[in-house]
């Protein structure tokens, strides 16, 4: 890394559209400097003139230092990024944050619940768990509509390793599952071979909180329910303050918390 708050130059190596207003980007180091990262961590992209924003790894850096992200166009920085071409130079800092607790997942029945653009932060851990034959795993992926779904190619690859249920607020035909992921827990539990022992979830905070409440009410320990939070992670190093959650900084203490930790943080303040 160049420095503390100073990005490293990286190139855009590949771009393709993947879902509503979303694109799949591959990045590679411009200076040959490689880094490693863990599932659940994030990085920042700097677009000169537009500032910097945090994104999750869709794939961890490979032997050449190449890594991927699924990015939805939402603000001015992502709008500028969507005007970039292959070969363009942007800034990178990272990796930041903690990671999914892989050692606490192996050998357990793991249910992954993703909502909308919350699927990409779960992709790297889904890849790692899929590679471990001792870990039964299933995925429920909820979206507003079929057009909003992302990670088409990744999902088709995961189909070989795990049952996947896809739900829609607005299905486009009667064969598609209607409702939220929680409306279809019984079906996925049947495919998983029993009630889940661990939940991994990422999506709108309202959805994640509902997921946590549902499984706690059904007897799962709060320490076994893991959520990846989104906050405005501006600096990534626990300084700028924008990502606070009670006394915790999501960019360094998170973004992955279990429900026990979050319950304690929610008791401190209302934000």
């Amino acid at each position, binding site marked *: 890394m*160049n*420095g*503390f*708050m*100073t*990005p*490293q*130059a990286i190139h855009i190596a590949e771009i393709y559209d993947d879902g509503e207003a979303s694109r799949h980007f591959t990045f590679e180091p411009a200076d040959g400097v490689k880094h490693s990262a863990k599932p659940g961590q994030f990085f920042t992209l*700097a677009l*000169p*003139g*537009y*500032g*910097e*924003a945090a994104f999750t790894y869709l794939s961890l850096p490979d032997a050449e230092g190449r890594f991927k992200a699924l990015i939805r166009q*939402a*603000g001015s*920085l*992502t709008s500028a990024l969507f005007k970039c071409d292959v070969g363009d*130079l942007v*800034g990178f800092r990272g990796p930041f944050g903690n990671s999914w607790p892989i050692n606490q997942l192996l050998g357990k029945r793991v249910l992954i619940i993703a909502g909308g653009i919350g699927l990409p932060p779960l992709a790297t851990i889904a890849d790692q768990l899929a590679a471990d034959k001792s870990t039964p795993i299933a995925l429920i992926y909820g979206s507003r509509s079929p057009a909003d779904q992302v990670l088409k190619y990744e999902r088709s690859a995961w189909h070989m390793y795990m049952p996947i249920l896809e739900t829609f607020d607005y299905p486009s035909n009667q064969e598609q599952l209607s409702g939220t992921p929680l409306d279809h827990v019984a079906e996925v539990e049947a495919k998983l071979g029993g009630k889940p022992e661990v939940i991994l979830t990422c999506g*709108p*905070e309202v959805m994640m909180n509902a997921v946590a409440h549902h499984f706690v009410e059904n007897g799962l320990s709060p320490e076994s329910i893991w959520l990846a939070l*989104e*906050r*405005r992670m*501006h*600096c990534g*190093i626990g*300084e*700028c*303050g*924008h*990502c*606070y*959650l*009670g*006394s915790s900084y999501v960019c360094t203490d998170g973004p992955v918390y279990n429900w026990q930790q979050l319950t304690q943080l929610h*008791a*401190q*303040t*209302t*934000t």
Partner: protein
Amino acid sequence: MKAFILEDIEHLRDHLASQRQVFTPQYAEDSTELDWLPLTDKTASVTAERPVLPTYPAKQFFFPDREILFQFDGSAFKETLPEVEPQVLFGVRSCDLCAIAYQDQFFEQDPYYQARRKATLLVGIDCNQPCEGGFCPSVNAGPFIRDGLADLACHQREDKSWLILAHTSEGEALIERLNLQAADPNLIAQRNEQETQVAAEFPSAEHIETGIQRINQAQVPAETWQNMGLQCLACSGCTNLCPTCSCFTSYDRPVAEGIERERCWDSCLYDAFQREASSHNPSADAGQRVERFWFHKFSDEYVKSFGRYGCTGCGRCEKTCPGVIGVHSVMKRISAAL
């Protein structure tokens, strides 16, 4: 720690100025604001009585309101660390020294902060009387300087002579050539006794103590935060003047070739402080933001990390708030809310 006796504190100040640039609180011409300015021939003499705090704390010397982080020339990002000439801050009060110690921990890994901080020596002055609105004794931040928080701590005795405590080797080196007379160890004990007397002169801070308890026991009714949120103009006066506030944002500024990334002070009381690109805002409500601000100043959670509260009792927020939600007003309302 070595202790010395000095008759004329200006002699020390001038001696420091012969080695480093000295900044000290003083009134600029035609100004009623006490500000941190370079020492000149016209700078007033030093007193420990009727202390007045500078409008701004010393944090701007280490964490300036604006600074360049890096430059981008179209092909590479180049870090721009500050280059700071050796300097002395002369006359820092105990509350502000506690705040510097707090920020030293908070910005421990920050090379911009550390470059400025390492170029700076701190000379503190014990406050022999309470200042208006200050409550440092209630948050263990004064009125006398805590061991190790200044390179030199200056204490004016009743006979107007000064007891100089060198807390660091850099502090000792600063005064080495003055050949000061070593102080009788009894004077240190006398200073400790005097601190108890000065602390007792402060007005009652029962509302502060009760408020701290209520915040830590999550006993403040949501309605109280809501009402205070309505009275917050989100002007950032309190966060700018607070000696421990550290939130910042950054933005890119176009320059002749490429851009500069600048960081500047931000405020957790602004409505968009936590707003994400998706419009999701975890603290969209002003009452929540006011709650979070005071939690950050008085929660025991931060004592675990920093060894003290985020408030050092300087009272600047009360003076600057154009509404009625400075520290005394807030803590009185929290105390009365049950």
